[in-house]
């Protein structure tokens, strides 16, 4: 090889050197691409180099937990100062590597249960946060300036050639593997099983460096299962308001839901309340959504035409397999999810995002940040933002755009509906409406460049509380916006600080709509409106196909 050629192939040469180190270190413990689980730490010691960018597949749901644990046991003399890339940092070992000095820098998206410890480590200086991203941003940076040298991913099965079957929980794997494999990086996959023939190939074997069968199946969390038994009468009322006051009003056909009980209540009211309003076939036909068990009754009632998913949900496998007209399934019958595509779909192809939050300020900024915790964002900001690049029209998009521009000298365009749905008080009487978000204080504490806002006020189009719906599209000044928000903030200090006359005026103009303005009889807001009242009801609705995880059963 000439010197000139070598100048442009340093990454490839480096990759070859790593592979050779592995061959030398593992010898007989290596069977083609298949590594014995007992040699996993040796493999990592040989593959990794100090300062490597390492993507560890921690997804919203599935976790490369075996590889994550192995990474905490590497020889710190050889491997240190790693730059970790994680979309979801949710297992203790994800932070153990920082405590042990194996890694020092972190770029991530969501931290959930580890948020408190992450904040402490960041404060102690053992962990240096590059940035906190949304999922799409982080995936995007894998292809721009944060390309992994080594990726540790999880799949259900592999064959001896390294082909991977990710099954229903494909999630982030394609994005990670593609970014790594095509930039001379090395993909190492933990799999539940090594088999001779895969049900289907999700990741081609020539993208994959090594495969290891982990002693226990990868950890996976049922994040999207909401037991209908826990839905309150207030949530039923809010779901009625959402359906009648927003879904019907804008004829929303393409949408994404958050994961809370509020939106589960809407899903369970589609076959009852929405059907009664004659909305079947007119609303909620196409979804970017994980396979929510609460959506089963609506699917069975024929409301839902298609669902594309970020990931799967435990227990839904057989139901999905039996409904290929609705879900995206492979020739083998199991679903294929893809977080990157679904996030893009949610951003560009949906007319509405509706979800709950913890705090909303007077500008409509909405945040789930809590003091002492660095929780990150996940995917909500991509869903809950106007897609300013969008050009294709739909009724809902056009109507929202028209409401926002009416009476102003602006060129016509549409707008995405972004609805924040929240009870005025959370548990323990914590008000959902505040003058100033906790995010400001958190930003100061953790030295962040900007307060961690989940959804920016200028993207929020509607705020829905048990008190009413505030349509921010129709507000014509900052003052009107503020009073519209105060007007649905109920008995919170923010709500009680409203200008009563102005709020009544906003109500006359339809900017604030109370349940009675929508023609909703509050006495009908009982749990009897739910298409399924408990987990067993969901199983029944699925014809016995849905098998809830054991922690959700009371039978």
């Amino acid at each position, binding site marked *: 090889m000439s010197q000139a050629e070598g100048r442009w192939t340093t990454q490839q040469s480096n990759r070859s050197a790593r592979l050779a180190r592995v061959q030398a270190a593992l010898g007989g413990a290596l069977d083609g691409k298949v590594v014995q689980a007992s040699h996993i730490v040796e493999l990592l010691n040989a593959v990794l180099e100090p300062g490597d960018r390492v993507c560890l597949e921690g997804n919203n749901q599935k976790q490369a937990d075996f590889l994550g644990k192995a990474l905490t046991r590497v020889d710190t003399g050889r491997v240190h100062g790693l730059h970790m890339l994680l979309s979801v940092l949710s297992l203790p070992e994800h932070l153990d590597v920082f405590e042990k000095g194996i890694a020092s820098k972190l770029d991530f998206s969501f931290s959930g249960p580890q948020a408190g410890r992450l904040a402490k480590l960041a404060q102690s200086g053992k962990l240096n946060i590059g940035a906190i991203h949304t999922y799409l941003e982080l995936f995007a940076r894998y292809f721009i300036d944060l390309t992994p040298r080594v990726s540790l991913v999880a799949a259900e099965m592999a064959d001896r050639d390294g082909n991977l079957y990710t099954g229903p929980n494909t999630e982030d794997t394609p994005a990670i593997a593609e970014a790594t494999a095509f930039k001379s990086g090395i993909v190492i996959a933990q799999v539940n099983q090594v088999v001779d023939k895969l049900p289907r190939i999700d990741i081609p074997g020539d993208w994959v460096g090594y495969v290891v069968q982990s002693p226990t199946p990868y950890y996976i969390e049922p994040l999207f299962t909401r037991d209908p038994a826990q839905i309150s009468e207030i949530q039923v009322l809010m779901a009625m308001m959402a359906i009648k006051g927003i879904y019907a009003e804008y004829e929303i056909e393409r949408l994404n839901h958050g994961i809370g009980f509020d939106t589960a209540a809407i899903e369970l009211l589609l076959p009852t309340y929405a059907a009664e309003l004659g909305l079947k076939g007119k609303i909620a036909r196409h979804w970017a959504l994980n396979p929510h068990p609460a959506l089963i009754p609506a699917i069975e009632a024929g409301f839902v035409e298609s669902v594309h998913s970020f990931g799967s949900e435990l227990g839904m496998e057989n139901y999905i397999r039996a409904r290929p007209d609705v879900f995206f399934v492979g020739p083998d019958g199991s679903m294929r999810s893809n977080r990157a595509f679904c996030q893009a779909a949610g951003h560009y192809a949906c007319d509405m995002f509706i979800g709950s939050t913890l705090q909303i300020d007077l500008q409509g900024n909405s945040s789930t940040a809590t003091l002492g915790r660095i929780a990150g964002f996940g995917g909500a900001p991509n869903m809950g933002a106007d897609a300013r690049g969008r050009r294709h029209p739909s009724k809902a998009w056009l109507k929202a755009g028209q409401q926002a521009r009416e009476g102003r000298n602006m060129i016509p365009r549409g707008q995405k509906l972004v609805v924040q749905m929240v009870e005025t008080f959370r548990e323990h009487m914590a008000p959902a409406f505040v003058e100033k978000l906790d995010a400001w204080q958190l930003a100061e504490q953790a030295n962040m460049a900007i307060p961690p806002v989940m959804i920016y006020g200028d993207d929020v189009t509607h705020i829905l509380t048990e008190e009413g719906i505030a349509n921010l599209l129709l507000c014509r000044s900052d003052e009107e916006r503020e009073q519209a928000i105060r007007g649905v903030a109920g*008995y919170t200090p923010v709500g009680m600080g409203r200008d009563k006359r102005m709020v009544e005026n906003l109500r006359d103009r339809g900017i604030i709509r109370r349940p009675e303005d929508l023609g909703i009889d509050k006495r009908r807001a009982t749990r009897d409106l739910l298409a399924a009242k408990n987990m067993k009801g969901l199983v029944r609705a699925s014809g016995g196909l849905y098998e809830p995880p054991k922690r959700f059963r009371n039978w």
Partner: protein
Amino acid sequence: METLNYRFDGGDRSLAGMPQLVGVVGSGNLEVLVEPAPLKGACEIEVRTAAVGFGATWQAVMADFHARWRLADARISINDMGATPAVVSLRLDQAVESLLPPASGGPA
């Protein structure tokens, strides 16, 4: 625990029938006992709550309740375990609806 007392005059709707209890003293919930009582036309409300320091909120919720129903000669007693105003209003309405004569209709 905190005890709060409110009294509203000027109501004009009287209750009929036996005292009614609705709701349960469980987390985020409350029980509301509504009874007809000779109170010279007033509506008296006593709240015993586990959530201390929300007097102003209760005052506002109760004032709206009175404006909505305009009860006269009524005693309302509440045991609360941190219910939100939405739940409080819902239980109050349920309790009153169970005690108003059928012909008297809904809230004003």
